[in-house]
C-alpha cells in the first residue's frame, strides 16, 4: 500500500453529519464527517446504479443513495440491504492541519 495521501479539502468543507463529493485522478469519491467529527471516505458512486452518493442523505454512519434509497455504512462500506447488495470500497482518511487527506491506493 502506498503512503501517498491526497489533499482533498478543508476539514470544515464537510459539514457535520454530511457528505462531500471529491474527484481525483478520473475517479469520484465521497468524503464523510460524522456528528462527532470523524472522517471517512468511500467510492463516490452507488454500487447499484452509478448515482453520486454525495447527493444523498447521511444519518449517523449511514449514507443513503438519493435514487433508490440503497444504504451503506460508510465507516465500513457495508451494504445495508436492498436494493444494494455490493459493498462500497473504503479509503483511509486523516485530518492534518485542518485538511482532509485520503489514501486512494
Amino acid at each position, binding site marked *: 500500500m502506498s503512503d501517498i495521501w491526497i489533499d482533498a479539502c478543508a476539514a470544515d468543507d464537510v459539514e457535520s*453529519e454530511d457528505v462531500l463529493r471529491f474527484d481525483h485522478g478520473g475517479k469520484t469519491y465521497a468524503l464523510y464527517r460524522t456528528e462527532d467529527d470523524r472522517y471517512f471516505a468511500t467510492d463516490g458512486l452507488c454500487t447499484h446504479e452509478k*448515482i*453520486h452518493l*454525495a*447527493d*444523498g*442523505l447521511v444519518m449517523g454512519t449511514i449514507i*443513503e443513495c*438519493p*435514487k*433508490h*434509497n440503497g444504504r451503506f455504512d460508510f465507516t465500513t462500506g457495508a451494504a445495508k*440491504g*436492498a*436494493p444494494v447488495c455490493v459493498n462500497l470500497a473504503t479509503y483511509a482518511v486523516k485530518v492534518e492541519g485542518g485538511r482532509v487527506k485520503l489514501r486512494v491506493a
Partner: protein
Amino acid sequence: MSADAPRRVVIVGAGESGARVAIALREQGFGGEIALIGAESHPPYERPPLSKAAIVEAEARLPAIGDAARFAELGVDVRLGVAVAAIDRAERRVRLADGVGLGYDKLVLATGAKARHLPIAGAEHALTLRSYEDALKLRERFRSGGRVAIVGGGFIGLELAASARKLGCDVAVIEAAPRLLQRAVPPELGALAEARHRAEGVEIVTGAGVQGFAPDAVLLSGGGRIPASTLIVGVGAAPETALAEAAGLAVENGVRADARLRSSDPDIYACGDCVHFPHGLFDGRRLRLEAWRHAFDSGAYVARALLGADEDYLAVPWFWSDQYDACLQIAGLPDAGATTASRDLGEGALLLFHLAADGRLVGAGGWGPLGKIAREIRLAEMLIARRAHPAAAALADPAVRLKSLL
C-alpha cells in the same frame, strides 16, 4: 416468523414488486416454496430506465433486478414467458397458460398495469411504453431521426420528450389539460418542468384534445394537425385486474385491498401498481400508486406480512422523474395539503411543502439538480412519516436545515 407462516407462496407477476416479494421473503429467512410467474420472457427488470437509459445509452441493456442464477441461488422457482390463466380459490391453486397447476397457501398478485390507449381513430399508429420491447422500439425510432409527437404531458411523456431531444429529434408534446403534469405535480413545479422543456426546444401544446391519428400526424380536436414520423401515447396506465376479476375478487381501480394489502380473499395479497388500498397516513384515503418506490416498498411489506408482521402498510408515497439533468421528486400527497410553503434553493431549484389544515406536513416536492433536492425531499419524507407539524416559516427558510426539524 409466526407459527402459521405459509409453506407455499405463489407470486403472479415478475416485475419490481413481485420480484421484491420473493427476494424479501428469502432475506427474512423464509424457507418454504416460492414460485414467481412472469408473462414476459425476460428475468425481472426495473422499468424506470425504460424511458431514459434504455433509450439514450450507447448500448441497449435490460435493467435486470436479478438473473436466473441469482433466483436459483435464492431457491425461487421462476417461470417466465407464461401467463397465469386462472385462480381456483377454493382449491388454492393457480393454473398457468401452459397447463401447469401450482398450489399455494398464500397468493400474491403483482400483476402491474398496462399502458392506456386512446379510444380514437388511428390509435394503431401510436406507440406506448411499458415493456423493454416497447423501449427498444422507441430507441430505434428516436435513433432514426424524424419528428416525434407525444400525446400526454405526464411523467412518461416528458421523460420520453427529454430522451428524444437528447438523441436529436424534433419533439412536440400535446396535453389535453391546461398544463403539464396536472395529475400528480403542483403547478409551480409543473411550470419549471415546462420552462425547461421549452428551453430545450420541445414544442408544447396544452389544452389540446386529440381526435385521432393519421399515419404521419396527430389530429387535434380543433382541426389542427401536428405532423410526426413517430407517434406516442403516454396517458397513464390501467391496473391489470383481469385475473382478479375472473377469480371473483373485489376490484375497484385495481385489486381492492385493506390496509395490510389483503384482497377480499384473506389468502390473496396484492402489491405494486395493481393494488388499491387505504393509506393510514392520509386518513385512510384509498390510493393506487404507479411508482417504482411503491412497487419496491409494497413488495417488501407483503413479504413481512406473509411472515406475520403485525403492522399496516404505511410507506410514504414517493415519485421521481429525471428529465435532462433535472430531477423531480414528490413525497407524500401534495393535494392533501391546505397551504404551501416554498423554499427557493437558487439555480432554478425549488422545494414545496404542503401542510394540512392542522399544520401537519402531508406532501413535499422538488425540481432541480438531484444534488440540490434529493436529500431535502428524503428528509421531508421522514417528517411526513412521523406526522410532524413543522413551522411553515422554517420550511420556507433556506437557512434552516431540514434535518434540524426531525
